[in-house]
């Protein structure tokens, strides 16, 4: 069994890598072109973390959850804040996903970032980002979790804005940071709510900041024997936590930051979308799942937001021409599936989908990076025909796409079907709504995935970076785009993709088979992750066939419109032009936020108020302070010319004043 120190090691080894890179390597090798050592240290650290994570997983499988109380960090108001560890089946799975995906991304990054002047900085940030995510999933205390949560936010800010000299990247980083902050505020309120109601927890012998204790309190709350969080109280806590998840997992209405986050280096997107940042939101709901279960309203909100986001984001992916944006919308949509699944109580299937999604989405992003390496563009209108020059990338991307579209027997098929099956079996109207939305999402997903796939790899090559620059007009005069060198990417990039492709192809069935498979018992994953005594119903083959038929149908439609050149597709898009425009403007939500909310609401009204407050109140206070100190300075100034007597008189009078006050008192 893995020891407490071993689990800490999973977190501390990448922290150590960060420290070495930031404190030793960067100062020494700042001017070196590509200091490979920085990449190697990060990779080595994550490989070590991966080994320990697998060990942790095996330990949890054999011995059940590993909970370590850890040490007391602070004692405030009679309550201990502890820094501990909580490694249950959820954490164990997350650890393997995070470290595994991160490792493949680091290997890939080494080739992708070669020659970038920020190579060392990149790996320092990557170590920080991975470490923060690991710290988040192993946290045993909600404050500890919150600190890591914010560190993940910091890491994403640094990485999205990695090329900070590009205004778009800097703006995207700021947007991601601010938008997620709105959600974080809700999370913070939930924590404070728990803190202020600590009395009720302490009465029961529980610590309101320990995650285990919060989970333990949930059944009491549901049973109505927990006064402080009864009634609406628990709903507020759940909604606050959910707000944090909505921000981080880019759910409607806080989804706007994720598409812009594409400004970061592509491997960063792979990491953000597959294993770290956005998965944190889903993890958070799963972590406090008992609290959600105690509140029907909160569960309904989670289900509806998730299901709506799943469809809503998928529609925006339909017309986007930027390959990374298609994938970004796709991530938002797939996260919607997970959130919706949690909302209808399908805890196991949600985590299962998180698990399989990590593989195929990381694969697709790395594939997009590979394509970009060859063509110099992300705009699919200037790609096409890459099938012939990049056969390996083509094949690997095909696996990822089939998995995303939910085609048998790829990983996505199994996990998506479990969610659908759960919604189908659900007893009430809510499940029916969720089911209808998610089924619609299946069709949309199949279409946009293969639209993207065909536009990128089929048809004729449409010129890459050169053509893009020509199309954008003379904006780029004097800075000619590099000639695309159409060739397959290097092995260092292909191998990590291959590893992910194995997962995208087979991980679904291997970890959660329908029947006993060699050493793997049937429905292993469901039993492992799911709560005690959870049932793992067999596959609903009729439903599965229907969903997959739908996917195939829409892949077919995509083939009709986009496989042979873009003629048919263009005609269709022209026919529904207003809708396309709306989709390309992302339903005008960004415009609304930036125009009405930010410009009018913040700048004019809030800004105006703050300006008034600053001018009238703050300045007046400062002026008063200045006046006070000037007049005080007058007295002090007199004495500074040599009259220490003033001080002596002041002190004596002060002592006298105290004395007189007390004499009058008594």
């Amino acid at each position, binding site marked *: 069994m893995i020891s407490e120190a071993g689990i800490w090691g999973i977190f501390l080894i990448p922290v150590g890598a960060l420290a070495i890179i930031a404190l030793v390597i960067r100062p020494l090798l700042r001017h070196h072109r590509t200091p490979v050592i920085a990449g190697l240290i990060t990779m080595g650290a994550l490989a070590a973390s991966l080994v320990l994570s697998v060990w942790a997983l095996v330990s949890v499988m054999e011995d059940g959850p590993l909970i370590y109380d850890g040490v007391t960090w602070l*004692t405030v108001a009679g309550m201990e804040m502890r820094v501990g560890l909580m490694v249950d089946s959820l954490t164990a799975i997350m650890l393997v996903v995070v470290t595994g995906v991160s490792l493949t991304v680091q290997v890939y990054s080494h080739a992708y970032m070669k020659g970038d002047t920020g190579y060392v900085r990149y790996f320092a940030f990557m170590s920080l980002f991975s470490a923060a995510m690991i710290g988040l999933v192993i946290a045993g205390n909600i404050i500890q979790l919150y600190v890591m949560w914010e560190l993940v936010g910091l890491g994403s800010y640094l990485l999205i804005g990695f090329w900070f000299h590009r205004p778009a990247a800097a703006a995207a980083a700021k947007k991601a940071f601010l938008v997620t902050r709105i959600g974080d505020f809700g999370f913070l309120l939930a924590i404070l709510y728990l803190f202020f109601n600590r009395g009720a927890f302490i009465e029961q012998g529980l610590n309101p900041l320990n995650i285990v204790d919060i989970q333990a309190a949930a059944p009491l709350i549901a049973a109505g024997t927990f006064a402080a969080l009864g009634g609406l109280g628990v709903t507020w806590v759940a909604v606050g936590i959910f707000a944090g998840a909505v921000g981080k997992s880019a759910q409607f209405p806080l989804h706007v930051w994720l598409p812009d986050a594409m400004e970061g280096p592509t491997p960063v997107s792979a990491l953000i979308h597959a294993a770290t940042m956005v998965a944190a939101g889903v993890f958070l709901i799963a972590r406090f799942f008992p609290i959600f279960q105690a509140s029907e309203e909160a569960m309904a909100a989670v289900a509806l937001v998730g299901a709506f986001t799943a469809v809503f984001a998928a529609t925006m992916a339909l017309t986007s021409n930027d390959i990374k944006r298609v994938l970004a919308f796709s991530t938002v949509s797939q996260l919607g599936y997970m959130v919706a699944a949690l909302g209808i109580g399908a805890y196991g299937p949600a985590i299962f989908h998180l698990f399989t999604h990590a593989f195929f989405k990381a694969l697709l992003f790395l594939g997009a990076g590979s394509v970009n390496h060859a063509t110099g563009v992300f705009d699919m209108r200037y790609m096409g025909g890459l099938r012939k020059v990049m056969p390996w990338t083509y094949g690997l991307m095909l696996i990822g796409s089939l998995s995303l579209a939910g085609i048998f027997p790829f990983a996505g098929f199994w996990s998506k079907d479990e969610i659908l099956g759960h919604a189908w079996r659900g007893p009430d109207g809510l499940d029916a709504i969720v089911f209808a939305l998610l089924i619609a999402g299946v069709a949309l997903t199949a279409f946009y995935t293969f639209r993207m796939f065909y536009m990128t790899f089929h048809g004729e090559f449409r010129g890459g970076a050169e053509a893009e620059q020509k199309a954008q007009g003379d904006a780029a005069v004097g800075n000619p785009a590099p000639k695309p060198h159409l060739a397959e990417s290097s092995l260092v990039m292909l191998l990590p993709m291959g590893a992910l492709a194995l997962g995208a192809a087979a991980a679904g069935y291997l970890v959660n088979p329908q029947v006993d498979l060699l050493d793997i018992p049937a429905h292993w994953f469901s039993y492992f992750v799911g709560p005690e005594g959870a049932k793992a119903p067999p596959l609903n083959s009729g439903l599965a066939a229907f969903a997959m038929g739908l996917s195939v149908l829409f892949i077919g439609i995509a083939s009709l419109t986009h496989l042979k050149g873009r003629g048919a597709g263009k005609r269709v898009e022209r026919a529904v032009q207003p809708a396309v425009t709306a989709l390309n403007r992302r339903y005008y939500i960004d415009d609304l936020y930036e125009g009405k909310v930010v410009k009018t609401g913040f700048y004019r009204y809030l800004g105006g108020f703050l300006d008034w407050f600053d001018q009238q109140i703050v300045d007046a206070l400062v002026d008063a302070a200045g006046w006070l*100190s000037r007049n005080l300075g007058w007295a*002090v100034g007199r004495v500074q010319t040599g009259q220490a007597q003033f001080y002596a008189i002041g002190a004596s009078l002060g002592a006298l004043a105290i*004395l007189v006050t007390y004499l009058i008192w008594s």
Partner: protein
Amino acid sequence: MTVQDVYLLSPEISLVGLALLVMAMDLFVKRKAVLFLMAVVGLALPVALSVMLWMDVQAEPGGRLVGVYGALTVDKFALFFKFLVLGSAALLLAASLDYAKRLTRLQGEFVGLILLSATGMTLLAAATELISIYVSLELTALPLIAMCAFLGSSRSGEAGLKFLILSGLSSALLLYGMTLVYGFTGSTYLTEIGEAMKNPLDPSVPFGGLVILVGVVLMVAGFGFKISSVPFQMWVPDVYQGAPTPVVAFLSVASKAAGFAVLLRVFYVAFPSLEMDWALLFAVLAAISMTFGNLVAMVQTNVKRLLGYSSIAHAGYLMVGLAAVASRIPNGGETSALGSLLFYLGAYTVTNLAAFFAIIGIANKIGGHKIDDFAGMAKRSPLLAAGLTVALVSLIGIPPTGLFIGKIFLFSAAVESDLAWLAVVGVVNSVVSAYYYLKVARLMYMAEPASDEETPASSISLRLALIVSALAVVAVGVAPRILTWATDAAASPLLP
């Protein structure tokens, strides 16, 4: 004196010995840096002796060793302050090397006087008899007064003279207070005073209750100078501005810590049953000190004056703890208020040291202490700018730094003692203080350097001292247990 007494005094004896040795060596040694090195290394001896004493005290059933005819009580409370003073002295001497290089003479005396003043402070923490307290206090103050005037400039001389006069005044008040207390209780031993105070007032003594009241208030006034609380704070800005920076640093941390040590001990041991609302007195003084210090600090243009007012404000925060402690003393209290106060003192010590060390280095570069000249310091010296920023962030009370935790402790102790209003005043003051602290940080990072002339880099010993103290600030903020472990132990001897 018995062997036991010598053992109890051994840290102080070794300190005095070290001071004399350094001053003697000064006659023979050409490179004065050797003297500083010698002193820093030599401080290991009193530290080691204090560690031995700590272990012996731990083994003792009563948790204390009393000696020198009952004038000295060595317990964990005293030893905590000894470590604080000795640690500050060691860091300070390492950091003063750059500064002292500019002194053309008296470098050996500089080191010697610092060590002698430190001796007074370590004694002060352990003294439990009024005359010993007074003598220790003078031993603390006189070397510092001499050093204030060390630069020979008119500002420095003025600082020294003012400090001397006001120190004399405070000593006079203190002595007069002590005399009255002695006259009323018939003893100079704190424990015996405490016993005498328990008895009901003897009606035959004329003005009995009044006399003790006057005596105690005068003692408070005397200690008030040491901790630079309002209304005894007026010397602070002038002395801070005029005196050599390392002396100011020592004054602002070690001297203040020793002042709190003796104040706490006197109140816990001698006057626990005094029927007065001390909590309210300290609370009001705390509120005034914080507000006054922070408001006036806002308009300062000299960084040393700024830190002077900041030091007054922090005396106010510390007195929040004192108020919480005072409201607990009559009913037996628990560790949290006293422990919080000690924690804040410890965190404040490393924070202020880091700030002053960075300022010594920066002042060497810009040749003065004008805040405007700090512009662009991040480009000219990233380490100094980063060190100062860490200290400033901690002084505001922003995580992850020591004083953030310190403020949480202090303010929650105040709330527990039904002084919620004081906690609110403290929080508002912390927010206000961000204005002038961050102004300095912003100037260093956002503004362009006024000049990019190459200046010699700071010495390694200064940089090391800065790094150690800044890391300590963060370490205490991230893992407060390093310090709470010590402060809980230190608080225990005073609690019933």
